[in-house]
């Protein structure tokens, strides 16, 4: 009787566990079988390298470039600010302040995209328009927005990477007469570099996949990016802008955009998992 109960339980738990694998497989199948045929029909090169996008011509190079440029911009802003903040939290911050900052970082991670987007639409867009000219809805606005949005990812992971460096490295450096700053930047941070790097990779993943916040501030013109103060369209926003009314090959082209995005994200995830596994060894 008990033996049977254990067996049933084991079966149920295994079944639940397989749900994740099954879901992933079905997701991959449905995205790729709906997107790939269109890409092949249309011509993979014409699709990936074409620079014109309208209802009949589907070249997504502008969106690929847009996604990459916006992500790089967000990383240039978010990564240094995030890492320095993580250093503050791990090494500079008294416990009485940390009690408030830690939940604040969690809150930042929990604020929905839509609120970030709305905030950027109301504050960053007008600021960009008034300061640099142009329409305001622009690449710069998207970059600033994403730079803020990737902060919590970078801060939490970098902070725990720095905290997991053995304390003896720090005392070793102090005992040689090195200052606190030198001990942190020349010993602790380099020792935590793989953890910090994986935080950057996750941040990149978050930036490239972000949709709803970006669509609110980026301008979204489906043309090659022409400058920081001009509009830009990313892979994610390409899908969300047109899916509501697309049909036929147009719809398949949007799914195919999803395929390209998916490949980017899988690459980034792969790098992340690789670092994580290497570190575990």
């Amino acid at each position, binding site marked *: 009787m008990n033996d049977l109960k254990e067996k049933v339980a084991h079966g149920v738990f295994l079944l639940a566990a397989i749900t994740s694998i099954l879901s992933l497989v079905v997701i991959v199948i449905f995205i790729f079988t709906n997107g790939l045929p269109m890409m092949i029909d249309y011509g993979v090169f014409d699709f990936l390298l074409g620079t014109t996008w309208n209802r009949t011509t589907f070249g997504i190079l502008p969106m690929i470039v847009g996604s990459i440029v916006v992500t790089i911009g967000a990383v240039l802003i978010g990564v240094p600010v995030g890492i320095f903040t993580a250093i503050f939290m791990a090494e500079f911050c008294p416990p009485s302040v940390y009690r408030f900052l830690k939940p604040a970082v969690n809150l930042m991670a929990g604020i929905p995209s839509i609120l970030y987007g709305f905030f950027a639409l109301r504050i960053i867009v007008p600021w960009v328009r008034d300061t640099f000219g142009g329409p305001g809805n622009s690449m710069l606005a998207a970059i600033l927005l994403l730079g803020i949005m990737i902060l919590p990812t970078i801060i939490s992971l970098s902070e725990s990477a720095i905290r997991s460096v*053995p304390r*003896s*490295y*720090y*005392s*070793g*450096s*102090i*005992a*040689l*007469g*090195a*200052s606190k700053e*030198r001990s942190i930047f*020349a*010993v602790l941070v*380099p*020792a935590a570099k793989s953890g910090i790097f994986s935080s950057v990779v996750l941040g990149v993943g978050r930036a490239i996949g972000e949709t709803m916040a970006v669509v609110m501030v980026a301008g979204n013109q489906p043309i090659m990016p022409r400058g920081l103060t001009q509009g830009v369209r990313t892979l994610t926003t390409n899908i969300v802008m047109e899916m509501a009314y697309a049909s036929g090959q147009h719809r398949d082209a949007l799914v195919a955009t999803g395929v390209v995005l998916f490949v980017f994200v899988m690459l980034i995830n792969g790098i992340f998992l690789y670092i994580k596994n290497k570190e575990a060894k």
Partner: protein
Amino acid sequence: MVTQPKIKVEDLKLWYGDFRALHGVDLDINENEVTAFIGPSGCGKSTFIKTLNRMNDLIPYARVEGKVELDGQDIYSKKMDLNNLRKKVGMVFQQPNPFPKSIYDNIAYGPRTHGVKKKSELDEIVERSLRQAAIWDEVKDHLDRNALSISGGQQQRICIARALAVEPEVLLMDEPTSALDPISTAKIEELVSELKQEYTIVMVTHNMQQASRISDRTAFFLNGHIIETDQTRKIFTNPNQEETENYISGRFG
């Protein structure tokens, strides 16, 4: 005994929060000698050695009263440059703690910290320090290897070399061989005996044979007090205090 001691400690007290770890310690440490601290676990010897280069500053809630003079200068005075103090008074830890960098960068870290930039000068310091720590021959062909990839005994000698590279005057060693095998231990003991020609060495040890083998003077700690300080030979053959006698004959601790 007319020469001034290298380090003079007067009535040093230390608290961890409410717990009093040192009760008024007085001690003179002479130049170019090895001074050993012995005593049972928790007697305050490790706590005390950390007060000599103010590593206890890193421990929150630790509070110090009293006086520690290095060459007649109070190291707890407000004017004291901490980084300079720690440059003069180097330290080797119980667990070997090389940085996760190459052997070369480990040794060069200290000199770089204190402003040495020229490659040729650094090369020279690295070689000299590694030779002094008697490990040059073992590592000279792979200075770019990660210091964490060599054996524990070698790591500890790298740490000694790293401490020597900043040209300290005093070298504090907190149970430097307790994590090592007997062969590595013997190498480090031999090294310490050579280093005392040029440096003043203070060493905490759990191992009484070690203290009797390599030290010139020994201080016996118990419950945060120094019970007795004397020539090592005297301490181990004919101590003045009964507690010392009991400890070295193995009756407690």
